[in-house]
């Protein structure tokens, strides 16, 4: 339709009129054309967005980041993956906010997004998944910026960008500063022991196929926050691929000795409640694990909250790592 295609702003305005048009009174804040705009570079190109967005819809990885940055959200996608990592306050906000999309990009409810009358939509899904979303239709509602994940450790840049788009950098920077201060303090605490150790990590992110284990190297989910404490993870992926495949691999259990024999100490991912996930338990039950030098020396450390993807969540991870690494200092 020519109307929808012609201009995002005109479309949004027309839509706002239609949606609120049936009888009810209009409040003044819905005029998207009003106020200053700026140009923002996102995955989907240079987008003109409001300088101070008042009504933001966030999906995917952007959900926890935006909640944490106190962005003025009016609708979010469901994001079960992030729930265990959210603080109590954030979780309450998450539960209270109207859901306008499901876990999958496919389950986006365009009408519900339109009803939320956003002036900015932030999509936090990986670039290939954007094909599942009718971006044009979303653009007819409000400017759309897509900022999706790449390498696991890149959440630092991505969440900053997402918060920047929503105009809530102030809160974001405050949290980031707190995180960095805490990480620096802990790095100092472990200065004497941690950088000396050659570390390896056994992860449980995504679908670990039967009979394999997830070996994570530096910059991966399980390792990137520990690295802020000065931990050194050795080795690299045999055949690097795009995205997370550059920093983690899923070899057969038979390769466990070859992969981790050189490690001085091994960290492994556990769930938020401290329980060992199936994929890791399989490794730890194996006799090959018990044969590893690091395991024989008793140097294995569970890491909680390894999927943290915002500074606020990563604070929790820092605490968990601190607790877990504490025995190192006693030696």
């Amino acid at each position, binding site marked *: 339709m020519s109307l929808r295609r012609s201009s995002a702003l005109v479309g949004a305005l027309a839509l706002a009129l239609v949606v609120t048009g049936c009888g009810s009174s209009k409040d003044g804040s819905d005029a998207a054309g009003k106020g200053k705009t700026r140009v923002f570079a996102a995955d989907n190109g240079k987008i003109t967005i409001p300088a101070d967005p008042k009504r933001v819809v966030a999906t995917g990885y952007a959900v926890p980041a935006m909640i944490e940055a106190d962005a003025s959200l009016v609708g979010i996608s469901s994001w079960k993956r992030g729930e265990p990592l959210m603080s109590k306050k954030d979780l309450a906000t998450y539960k209270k906010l109207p859901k306008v999309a499901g876990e999958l990009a496919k389950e986006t409810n365009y009408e519900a997004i339109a009803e939320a009358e956003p002036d900015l939509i932030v999509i936090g899904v990986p670039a290939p998944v954007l094909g599942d979303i009718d971006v044009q239709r979303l653009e007819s509602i409000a400017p759309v910026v897509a900022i999706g994940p790449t390498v696991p450790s890149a959440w630092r840049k991505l969440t900053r960008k997402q918060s920047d788009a929503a105009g809530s950098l102030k809160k974001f920077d405050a949290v980031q500063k707190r995180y960095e201060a805490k990480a620096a303090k802990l790095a100092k605490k472990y200065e004497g022991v941690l950088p000396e150790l050659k570390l390896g990590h056994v992860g449980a992110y995504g679908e670990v196929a039967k009979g394999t284990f997830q070996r994570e190297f530096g910059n991966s989910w399980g390792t990137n926050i520990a690295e802020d404490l000065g931990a050194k993870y050795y080795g690299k992926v045999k055949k690097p691929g795009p995205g997370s*495949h550059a920093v983690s691999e899923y070899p057969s259990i038979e390769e466990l000795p070859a992969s981790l024999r050189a490690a001085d100490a091994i960290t492994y991912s556990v769930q938020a409640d401290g329980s060992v996930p199936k994929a890791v338990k399989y490794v730890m039950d194996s006799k090959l694990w018990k044969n590893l030098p690091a395991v024989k020396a008793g140097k294995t450390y569970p890491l909680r909250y390894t999927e943290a993807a915002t500074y606020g969540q990563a604070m929790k991870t820092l605490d968990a790592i601190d607790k877990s690494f504490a025995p190192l200092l006693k030696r």
Partner: protein
Amino acid sequence: MTTRQALAAPARRRTVLSALGLRPERRTVILVAVLTALILGLGLLGLCYGASWKSPGEVFAALNGSEPSIVIQDWRLPRVLAALVFGAALGVSGALFQNLTRNPMGSPDVIGLDAGAYTGALVALTVLSGTSAQLAVGSVLGGLAVAALIYVLAYDRGFSGLRLVVIGVAVNAMVTALNSWIVLRAELEVAIAAVGWSAGSLNGVGWGDLGIPFTVIGVLLALMAARAHAMHQAALGDAIAVTTGVGLDRLRLLMVLVGVGCTATVTAVAGPIAFIALAAPQIGRRLAGAAGVPLLPAALTGAVLLQGADLIAQMLLAPVALPVGVVSTAIGGCYLIWLLTKEVARA
């Protein structure tokens, strides 16, 4: 008793009856009227239902332009029409393959056309960048490739429906295996998206997505409608068909092309929507009390099924929009089992 006999025996009875202008035709007319009314009713419901309910009055006002509404005209209407046309296309496609194979199992989703189209889409997602154009082209090519493979493998100095179905089941299993291998190799985030793509959905379908598919389906259905009479004759058995001068091989090729074209076009836009093609022709045939697998009841039943399934998909977890493929599988399968049970009870 074999299917061939099962189909041929009532078929002969029907020709006698229809020659005398008796019941089956009247029943078909009534059925068509009822199904059309159902389609219109479900269509209106689809236009009214959404994040906010619109009264039928508002819907009509929007449709005749007196009170324009982007939500109704540009969002809900294309979705409703897509459910109608795609459902009909899937129903016809299923009916064609069931006629061709003389087997109620011989539907595009069983013999692997859906899986092949999905392979094409997966390749577009994982190897290429996965734009919607690449997804569409990929899935049409995938569907066609699988159809060609099955046809070549099944055509061996003659043509047997059962052989085609069995080979189709085998090809389906292989292509499905290939799909899981591709997903296993894919990057995690892409794999999660691909898993979502495995259940078809009409969510977010707009006018821009529908122009070409509607044209293609329209042309294919018109082509087939012109030869429907010949097809029904062919359904009476090769011997009779040859004596009445039907170019059997050419007819079959046309049926395959139309069937594949319809399935692949729908899959390209919406993803694999399983079970409509399998269930609609069988349900339509039983409702019509007809011999063979007639096209019109199959098309109308397909439209009703897909419209109903899409509405349920929207309502079940609202505001989260469930993929219609999940619902169509569950509903279509249950209904088919119920139908079979009823026949067992009656027998």
